[in-house]
């Protein structure tokens, strides 16, 4: 039976279960170590939650195809939406497992609703309360992912990216800098403008493309960074580097992006381009290309165009 993904600000159960599940995955170790993944330093176990950090960074560092330097295995091209849907599905399955609750659905953050407020109101959204995701700071000192120097088993950033783009070990608290790099979140005008756009994607299949994917990812005018990118930049701190899944807010942002994609397909049809007949220069982004995987069997974009048997959203009013 399909689970329902709900608004984190209006569903206290989903909010609490999400925070609980993330902390359980942070403390689960299935066997992989830093040494087994080529991460330097004394070899340490990697938690299931941190494997998602590794996976995201690896996809981002894998050029698709390798002969060009723009599109990677998860971003800056058509596969952006399918790959993140694949990632969210895997997180949801693992959260269901550790919560022992097959009905759990990932919550989303309707950031464009918060975007209607003034910059100050946006920074004071209920999302950043101690009872939700906690607040801003370096480290974050409130909420379920707060830093406690006396608790070595508490929420810590254990894997991060260095300035040269390599995974390294760390042991510090989560960082956020709400509204510092950019003062405002996207608005409903922005999301509506993206949903109106067709086709899904178009040549040159990159950050200059017309179409829904590039607008929603946040590269195209009128103002970049926009939408998805803008939310990363607005939250700041650990949401800025390619290890951004370190902040559990990462998934709330992408769940809302996924909701946008579902809304777009509901209006315009469950279509995807480029098709498999597209040239090899688009390898990694075509309909039946395998998407880069780490913790499960690989999936293809074609596998995730209709997921209504797995989950639905409580609302597609984005």
């Amino acid at each position: 039976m399909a689970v329902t993904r709900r608004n984190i600000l209006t569903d206290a159960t989903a909010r609490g279960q999400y925070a609980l599940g993330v902390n359980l995955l942070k403390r689960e170790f299935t066997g992989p170590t830093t040494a087994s993944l080529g991460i330097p330093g004394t070899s340490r176990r990697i938690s299931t939650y941190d494997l998602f950090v590794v996976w995201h960074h690896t996809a981002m560092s894998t050029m698709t195809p390798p002969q060009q330097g723009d599109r990677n295995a998860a971003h800056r091209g058509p596969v952006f939406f399918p790959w993140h849907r694949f990632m969210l599905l895997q997180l949801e399955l693992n959260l269901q497992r550790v919560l022992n609750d097959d009905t759990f659905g990932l919550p989303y953050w309707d950031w464009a609703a918060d975007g209607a407020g003034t910059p100050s109101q946006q920074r004071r959204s209920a999302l950043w309360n101690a009872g939700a995701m906690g607040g801003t700071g370096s480290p974050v000192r409130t909420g379920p992912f707060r830093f406690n120097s006396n608790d070595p088993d508490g929420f810590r950033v254990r894997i991060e990216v260095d300035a040269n783009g390599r995974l390294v070990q760390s042991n510090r608290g989560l960082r956020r800098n709400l509204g510092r790099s950019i003062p405002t979140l996207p608005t409903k005008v922005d999301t509506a403008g993206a949903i109106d756009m067709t086709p899904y994607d178009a040549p040159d299949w990159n950050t200059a493309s017309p179409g829904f994917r590039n607008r929603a990812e946040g590269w195209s005018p009128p103002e970049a960074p926009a939408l998805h990118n803008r939310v990363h930049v607005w939250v700041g701190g650990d949401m800025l580097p390619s290890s951004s899944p370190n902040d559990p807010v990462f998934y709330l942002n992408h769940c809302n992006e996924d909701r946008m994609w579902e809304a777009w397909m509901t209006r315009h049809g469950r279509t995807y381009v480029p098709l498999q007949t597209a040239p090899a220069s688009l390898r990694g982004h075509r309909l039946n290309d395998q998407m880069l995987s780490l913790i499960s069997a690989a999936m293809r974009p074609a596998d995730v165009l209709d997921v209504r048997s797995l989950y639905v959203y409580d609302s597609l009013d984005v």
Partner: protein
Amino acid sequence: MSRPKKVRSTTQTVAAYVRSNAKHVRRTQMQHHAGTESVRTATHRGHEIVVKTRYDITIDGRPVTGHLGVSNDGHVHYHPIPNLSFASALDMVKAIIDVFPDRFTSKARGKKRDKHPSHH
């Protein structure tokens, strides 16, 4: 179009898939892009255009070796800072310093030099 079936994860399946896919992670850990060359191509009135741009960037004398790219509109991007692009490479390097504060404190600079004296 296929409809995916729910495939539950277990601690055993997670461990097994990570073992089989670890090569992807190790490969990206080996990447080193000192002196990135970007190649842009286009066709105009039947003529093939190739523009190669080489960036040699250092901060405090140490090379920046993450993957850098140049879009066709001339904006530069740095994959370790994935949600931003920059009109100027100088602005991009300033952002690198801002996003990775641990790397660019004076304490970190001294520590890195001591730890990796022959690396660069």
